[in-house]
Structures are given as structure tokens and as C-alpha cells.
């Protein structure tokens, strides 16, 4: 089987270089859900990255003359109760949402891996760590995040910390489960028998083999984090107004739902598109990277 | 072979079953024909992948479709062709006139229903009797298949029973409506050697008592010798030799049968590999032209790779699909 037969429409470079190095890439690009997710999420990501270019108007510039303007050619997404540009507010909201989501993902990757690997690899730690995660997971995720954010006081930083605290136990569990499987495999047992150090075994043999479920999990965590951050800022526990977040734009727009529904509708659509995109990406990654899971989904 | 024989209980003619995948269609059963008289016991023997189970599932109308599909042939049972029958008509035959037991007693019973429920169910559905009558029948059946303290077992769940006991339950379910034909697909393969002998013994005595015909599917010629009247040896979707038991054991005419005979495991070792025949059954996707056994056959000659050997008579009631014993030039065989 050659790449040329399988992917006729693609440029020669892609056939020989990119796909050869990452055959997974080709399988991902054939996964319909993954591609839709990539387009959705990619769009939001571009908006977030180029927010100041796409929406040059200051999201906090108040213009009382232009209050409650419905979406039209001058105000693409309309204006809010203070005449602020919805396009600017939603675009900057995307920036903050994705930034917080990404921070949660990074914190999850670092601490989830450390705790999960420690629990899975060092049996003595396992019981204690798992009971603690049990207890943390006994609280409904969003509720615990609300509690922590309420205690720490509202800000985007606390939102990121609260959400990380909630999801790290879940990530750690997944890493632990993979480590438990991988550490029993023959090549790891052989490395142990040959007297390799714990760190070396973990870093060189165990962790690379846990990467697939971890990447899948982190994609879903990204989705949950964006969604939950919106809940926190909707409740007034995220970044404080006037800093625009999708959650607080919706919370403010709620009062004007009869006369200016677009204030509420549009940020919610952006939020839904982001989360849906990430979920689709996660589904695609899971199907392609983690075939064991695919069987049960088939 | 020609036309199906409606005097027989079961008459299979030129059965062809294909499995269709994206990569193409694979013939799993390719022109299989055999007859079975009432009360007769036929053993279908071959390695896994030879099409034995697919043949049985086709008779039952339980072929997983898709990907499986009956591509041609007839299956005459009690004088009627089963293949064109509607699903509803087949349901009245399955479990009532034709029953089947499977290789995996550990997973073939539903874990969430009691033994009693699972035995009674067939009787209630097929014979339209009340629960009390069905329960009496279930009890009788459990006694017949040699389950100790059957009354208590009725209330138990499958996981509380051993593999051998579960296979006995499966037999009880299969025979509850006194079928005319029992298809036993590797019924002892998953069991310990000592249990295997008990189950075979039980099947033989029940066959005698119920006067039913049995198709025993197995990869183990040793099992066949104990129990069956006639043997059909299958290889890669085709019957390569058919004869009565004595014929197969004393005068095997096909090199594959010879190989199988040479590899009968002795009772004290758990040898299951066919050590006498090198290689494996070809995948239905990559079937060799000509005789499908030729690549593994030590008697193979050049024509073997081009000529598809028909089942040639080798004595009374004995046939073998091998050109080794004939002069293919003078007999004018065509591929």
C-alpha cells in the first residue's frame, strides 16, 4: 500500500513527507467528525488569536447612542445595553475562554501525569491518592469548582485554579489506569529486571505508552473547562465585568432577553461551537489513537 | 449429487456462503452438499476456518448478516427449503425442530436470568404451555441431562454453575422441544478432557433416547470416532472427503484426512495443534486456485494447483476430492 494510491488528491509533499512521518494524521483527516471539529475549533481559535485585528473596536468602549443595535452591516453582531460592540466582546471573550481552557489543560497535563504516574507506579501511594480522588470526585464537578472559586474570590485566575482542581483527579485516574496496564507489559518488566531507574522507566517506557488516552482526555478536559468557565463567569465567579467573558456577557444580556435577545444568543453560540468542536476533536482522536475504546463505541 | 433428496431429514445442496467486506467478498462455504437421514449422526470435521460453523449457522438461519450472506444452494429440511423461508417461519423451526448448541458454555447462557427461566422459555414459546407445565418440563430436562438437585438449580444463575454443567443446561434447552435435528458446534472444545467425555456420552445417550439426527461439528477426529455414523471432512469451505466412520479411519482417501488422523491428540496430553500438517487454512480472501489443500499437501503435483477436484467416489458411500488416485489425463477432469 502506498500513499499515492490511498490519497490521490493530495499534493506530492503531503504524500511523501507529512503522512509518512505521521500516518495517524491521514487517518484523522479521514475521520469526518474530527475534520468538522477541527474546522469549528480552528475558527474560534483564529478569532481568539486575532481578536484585536478582527474586532478593532475596544470591547469596553461605551457608546450610548448605539445601544441595543441588532446585528447589521455596521455592527456585525449588534451592540449591548451600553452600546459596546458585541463582535469585540465575543472575540475577546473567546480569547479569555480559550486561555483559561488551555491553562486548565496544561495544569491537568502536568499534575495529572505526576499524580497518576505516581499512583500507578508506586503502589504504596496508590491507595491514599485514589481515596483522595474518590473524595474529590464525590462532589459534582461544577459544584466543587463553584465552591473553590467562591472561596478564592472571583477572577479568571481562580476560575482556572478551581477547574484544574476539579479535573486533575479525573485525569490522574486515567493516567493511573494506563500506567497500571503498561507497567505489566513485558518490555517494561524487562527494563525493571535490567535494573533501569524508576524515573527512566517511567519517562522512557511507561509514559509514552499512556500518551494516547491522555491526549484524548485532555481534549475533553479542554471542552469541559471552557464550558465550566462560562458557568462560573455566568454566576459571577469568573473574570469580573467589564472584562468580557462569554459567561458574563450572557449574564448581563439576560436582563434584556425580551428586547435584545442577540446579546444572549450570540456568545452562547460561540461557546457551543467551541465545546462541540473540542468534543468532535476528542471523539476523532479517541477513535484513531485509542482503538481499544473504539471497539466499544463501534 | 445433483438434486436434493427430500426423503432425507436434511439435504444440503451446493450451499455457498459469502462474507462481504469492504475489501471484497470471501467465500466461507463453497458448494457444500450432504444428506442426513432421520436419527443419523454426521460429524463435520475440519480445522477452524474451514466453514463448519458457517454451514451450521446457515441451516439455523442465524448467519450474521451482514457481512454473511447465503449466495446459493438449497437446504431441504423435512422436505422444505429453509433458505427462502420468512424470519417468522424460521423462528418456528429454530428451537423446536432444529436446535443448536455452541462451543462456549460459559457465555452462551444469559447471565441475568435463572436457569429455569432460560429452559422454560423455549417450551413456553414453542408449545404455548403455561408456566407450571413449562417448569415441569424444565425439571424433567435437567434430570435427563444429569444435573444434580435439579429443583434447586432452576432458581440459580449461570455463573453459579461450572462449564460442564452449563453445557448440560444448553443441551437441556436445545432438547426441551424434542427437535428432529441437533446441530452441535464444537460442544466439548471449551471443556476439560474428562468433562468432554461425559458430555459426549450424554449426547450419545440422548440421541438414542430422542431418536434425533445430530450434526456434530468438531476439529477433533477423536471425538468423531466415539459418536458419529458418518463423517464429512471440510477444508477451506469445501467437503474434501465423506465416508462412514470406519472408512475414514481405516481407508482415508484425502491427504488432509490423513493429516487429521495423524494429529489426533492422545488422551493424556492437551495437544490441539495439527502437528502432522504444516501451514494453516488459507484465508477465504486468498484462496489458492485448484485444490485448496495443495499448498500444504505433500502429495501435490502440478495439476493440483489448476484443477478443482470434485468429490470422486472411492468405494461404497465413500468420496474424496483428490486427484491423487486417478489419472487426471485419461479421466478428463476440467478445472
Amino acid at each position, binding site marked *: 500500500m502506498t500513499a499515492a494510491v490511498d490519497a490521490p488528491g493530495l499534493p506530492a509533499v503531503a504524500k511523501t513527507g507529512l503522512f509518512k512521518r505521521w500516518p495517524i494524521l491521514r487517518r484523522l483527516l479521514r475521520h469526518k467528525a474530527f475534520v468538522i471539529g477541527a474546522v469549528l475549533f480552528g475558527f474560534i481559535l483564529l478569532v481568539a488569536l486575532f481578536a484585536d485585528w478582527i474586532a478593532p473596536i475596544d470591547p469596553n468602549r461605551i457608546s450610548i447612542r448605539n445601544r441595543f443595535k441588532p446585528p447589521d452591516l455596521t455592527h456585525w453582531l449588534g451592540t449591548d445595553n451600553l452600546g459596546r460592540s458585541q463582535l469585540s466582546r465575543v472575540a475577546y471573550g473567546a480569547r479569555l475562554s480559550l486561555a483559561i481552557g488551555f491553562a486548565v489543560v496544561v495544569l491537568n497535563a502536568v499534575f495529572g501525569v505526576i499524580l497518576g504516574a505516581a499512583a500507578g507506579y508506586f503502589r504504596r501511594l496508590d491507595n491514599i491518592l485514589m481515596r483522595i480522588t474518590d473524595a474529590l470526585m464525590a462532589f*459534582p464537578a461544577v459544584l466543587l469548582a463553584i465552591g473553590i472559586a467562591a*472561596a478564592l474570590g472571583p477572577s479568571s485566575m481562580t476560575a482556572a485554579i478551581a477547574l484544574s482542581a476539579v479535573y486533575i483527579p479525573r485525569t490522574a485516574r486515567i493516567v493511573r489506569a494506563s500506567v497500571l496496564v503498561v507497567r505489566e507489559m513485558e518490555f517494561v518488566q524487562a527494563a525493571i529486571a535490567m535494573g533501569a531507574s524508576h524515573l527512566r522507566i517511567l519517562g522512557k517506557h511507561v509514559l509514552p505508552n499512556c500518551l494516547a488516552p491522555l491526549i484524548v482526555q485532555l481534549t475533553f478536559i479542554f471542552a469541559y473547562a471552557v464550558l465550566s468557565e462560562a458557568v462560573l463567569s455566568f454566576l459571577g465567579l469568573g473574570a469580573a465585568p467589564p472584562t468580557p467573558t462569554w459567561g458574563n456577557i450572557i449574564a448581563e444580556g439576560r436582563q434584556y432577553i*425580551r428586547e435584545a435577545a442577540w446579546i444572549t444568543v450570540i456568545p452562547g453560540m460561540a461557546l457551543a461551537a467551541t465545546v462541540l468542536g473540542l468534543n468532535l476533536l476528542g471523539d476523532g482522536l479517541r477513535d484513531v489513537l485509542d482503538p481499544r475504546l473504539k471497539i*466499544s463505541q463501534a | 449429487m445433483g438434486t436434493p433428496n427430500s426423503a432425507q431429514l436434511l439435504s444440503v445442496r451446493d450451499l455457498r456462503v459469502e462474507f462481504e467486506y469492504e475489501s471484497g467478498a470471501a467465500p466461507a462455504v463453497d458448494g457444500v452438499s450432504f444428506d442426513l437421514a432421520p436419527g443419523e449422526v454426521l460429524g463435520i470435521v475440519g480445522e477452524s476456518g474451514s466453514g463448519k460453523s458457517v454451514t451450521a449457522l446457515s441451516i439455523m438461519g442465524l448467519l450474521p448478516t451482514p457481512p454473511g450472506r447465503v449466495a446459493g444452494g438449497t437446504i431441504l429440511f423435512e422436505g422444505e427449503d429453509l433458505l427462502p423461508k420468512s424470519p417468522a417461519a424460521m423462528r418456528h423451526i*429454530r428451537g423446536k425442530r432444529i436446535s*443448536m448448541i455452541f462451543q462456549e458454555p460459559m457465555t452462551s447462557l444469559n447471565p*441475568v436470568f435463572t436457569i429455569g427461566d432460560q429452559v422454560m422459555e423455549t417450551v413456553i414459546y414453542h408449545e404455548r404451555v403455561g408456566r407450571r407445565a413449562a417448569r415441569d418440563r424444565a425439571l424433567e430436562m435437567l434430570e435427563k441431562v444429569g444435573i444434580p438437585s435439579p429443583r434447586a438449580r432452576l432458581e440459580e444463575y449461570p455463573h453459579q454453575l461450572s462449564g460442564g454443567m452449563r453445557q448440560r443446561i444448553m443441551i437441556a434447552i436445545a432438547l426441551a422441544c424434542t427437535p428432529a435435528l441437533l446441530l452441535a458446534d464444537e460442544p466439548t472444545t471449551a471443556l476439560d478432557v474428562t468433562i468432554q467425555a461425559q458430555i459426549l456420552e450424554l449426547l450419545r445417550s440422548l440421541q438414542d433416547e430422542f431418536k434425533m439426527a445430530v450434526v456434530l461439528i468438531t476439529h477433533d477426529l477423536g471425538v468423531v470416532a466415539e459418536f458419529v455414523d458418518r463423517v464429512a471432512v471440510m477444508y477451506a469451505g469445501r467437503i474434501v472427503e465423506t465416508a462412514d466412520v470406519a472408512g475414514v479411519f481405516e481407508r482415508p482417501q484425502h491427504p488432509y484426512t490423513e493429516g487429521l488422523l495423524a494429529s489426533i491428540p492422545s488422551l493424556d496430553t492437551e495437544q490441539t495443534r495439527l502437528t502432522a500438517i504444516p501451514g494453516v487454512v488459507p484465508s477465504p480472501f486468498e484462496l489458492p486456485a485448484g485444490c485448496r489443500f495443495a499448498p500444504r499437501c505433500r502429495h501435490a503435483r502440478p495439476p493440483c494447483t489448476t484443477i478443482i477436484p470434485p468429490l470422486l467416489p472411492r468405494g461404497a458411500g465413500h468420496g474424496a476430492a483428490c486427484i491423487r488416485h486417478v489419472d487426471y489425463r485419461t479421466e478428463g477432469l476440467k478445472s
Partner: protein
Amino acid sequence: MGRYVVARLIQSIPVLILVSVISFGIMKLVPGDPAVLIGGPTATPAELDNIRQNLGLDQPFHVQMGRFYAGLARGDLGRSLLLGKPVLEATIERIPVSLSIALYSMVLTLFLGISCGVIAALKRNSWADQAAMAFALIGVSLPNFWLGLMLIILFSVHLGWLPTGGYVPWQNDPVGWFRTATMPAVTLALLQVGLLARITRSTMLEVLRQDYIRTARAKGLPEFLVIAKHAFKNVMIPVITVIGVIFSVLLSGSVVVESVFSVPGIGSLLGSAVLRRDYPMIQGGLLFVATALLMLNLLVDVLYAYFDPRVRYDSRS
């Protein structure tokens, strides 16, 4: 069976203890002086001292912890600063409201989720399957507070069929209850239906591959019995284990959804406690909810044992 329940009760004790530690610890996360945050910038030093004394903040850590557990032992979760009454009392008062909506939502979720999942599995790869799975994915991606607002825009603002919010107790006026409870219940359910449908679908597909399904067909049973009896009870085993998860998401969702629809339940109680920094209420409410969930999970395990005889008879677990 009895032994199994007792064993599960004993197993949940260490988790309960840790849950209480976390609930207690959350208060300790408050940066700076909680009294200042509660009292606000205008509070006089005397008022602050009063708050500290009331909450026991002037006591050393171990005394605070001792008080907390002594209170727990008496069933005392502290006093709400806002409502001026015991946290437990305030919470229990609102149980019927939240519970009735949660159960309504649960019924919707189970009915829609299981039937969509079963249909999707049986009509695999058909348009119905794809629609159900697309719906599932969109469902888990929608923010519930936003979905609630969209329902208000549609059914209250545009169509005028249902009130925008509020709550009428069932025993006062069943029709009024339906009119007020339906949108919150649907909002909470829609997010979960997809999740449940996906799980049901994949479980059903898995079950249909099992040998005992082939046995049921070999018995000549009609397809309806094969699915509705032999497959369904096995499908329910994993589905039941998710009921705990579903309820947990329902509970946390209720904080936002009850606020959106102005439903005076436990969720909106916690929501307003969070905004007004009613720390004892937050602490007690979290502990209450987590304990309730643990108990629910226990119930789920018992149900699980009912559906799966393998668990029921295995006295070791």
C-alpha cells in the same frame, strides 16, 4: 444482599470523612480574612470581631475543626449568615423543590436517552442513528444556562406558552407545577439525554454481539423478545451505573438552571450563597450535596446488584 449493602455502607465511610475534610478545607482557601470579605469594606472592627466570633474564626485551627465535627455529629452544619437559620434546615426546606424537578428531569432523561440509544443501536448507521448521535454530541456541548435562556426566548417570550420562571409546588397546583417545572427539567435533561443515548447505544451493540443473544435466537424467540428481554436487562447494568453520574450532573446543573428559572431550590440557594459569600451555607451545602450523592451511589449499587445476579451472590464484594 443485606451483607452487600452493609459492605458498601462501610466502604463509603472513609470517602465521607474525606468529603467532610474537603468541605471544611474549602473555607480555609479564602485568602486574607474571611470576616472582612463577609462584612464588606464598611464593616466596623466591632462588627468584624462579631463575625469572627460567630464563625469561630478567632479560635485556633484545631478548635475550629473540633467544632466543625462536633456540629456534624449533632447534625449541625452551621448557620447561614444570609438567612439567619441553620444551613441544614434551609437546605431541607428546599429539597422537595429540587427533588421534584430532578426526578422529572431524570424520567425525561431515562426515557429519551434509553429509547434513542436502543433505536440507534438497532438501526445502526441509519439516518435515525446518525441523528441520535449528532443530537447526543450537540447536547453535551450546549451550556445549560444558555440553553435555558434559549427556551425562555422561545416558549415564554415568543410563544408565550410557559412562564419565564418561578415555581408552583405540586401539591398546590399540579398544572402550575408542570408549567413551571417543565423548562428547568427539559434544560437539565437535554444535556444528559445524549450522554445516556451514547452509552445505551454502545452497550446495546456490545450486548448484541454476545453468545447468549445467539442462544436466544437459536431458541427461535421472536426478535422483540430477544431485544426486550435478553438484551435489555443486560444493557441496563452499565446504564444503571451512569444514573449516579447523571444525578450528579443534574445536581450541579441545578445551581445554574434554578438561577436561570428563578426556582427556589437547593441549587439557587447555593448560587446566591456563593454570590453573597455566605461561607457556612456554601460549606454546609457542598457537604450536604456530596453526602446525598454518595448515598445515591449506594442506592445505585444496590439497584445494580438487583440487575446483575453475579454481583448479588458474590459476597466478597
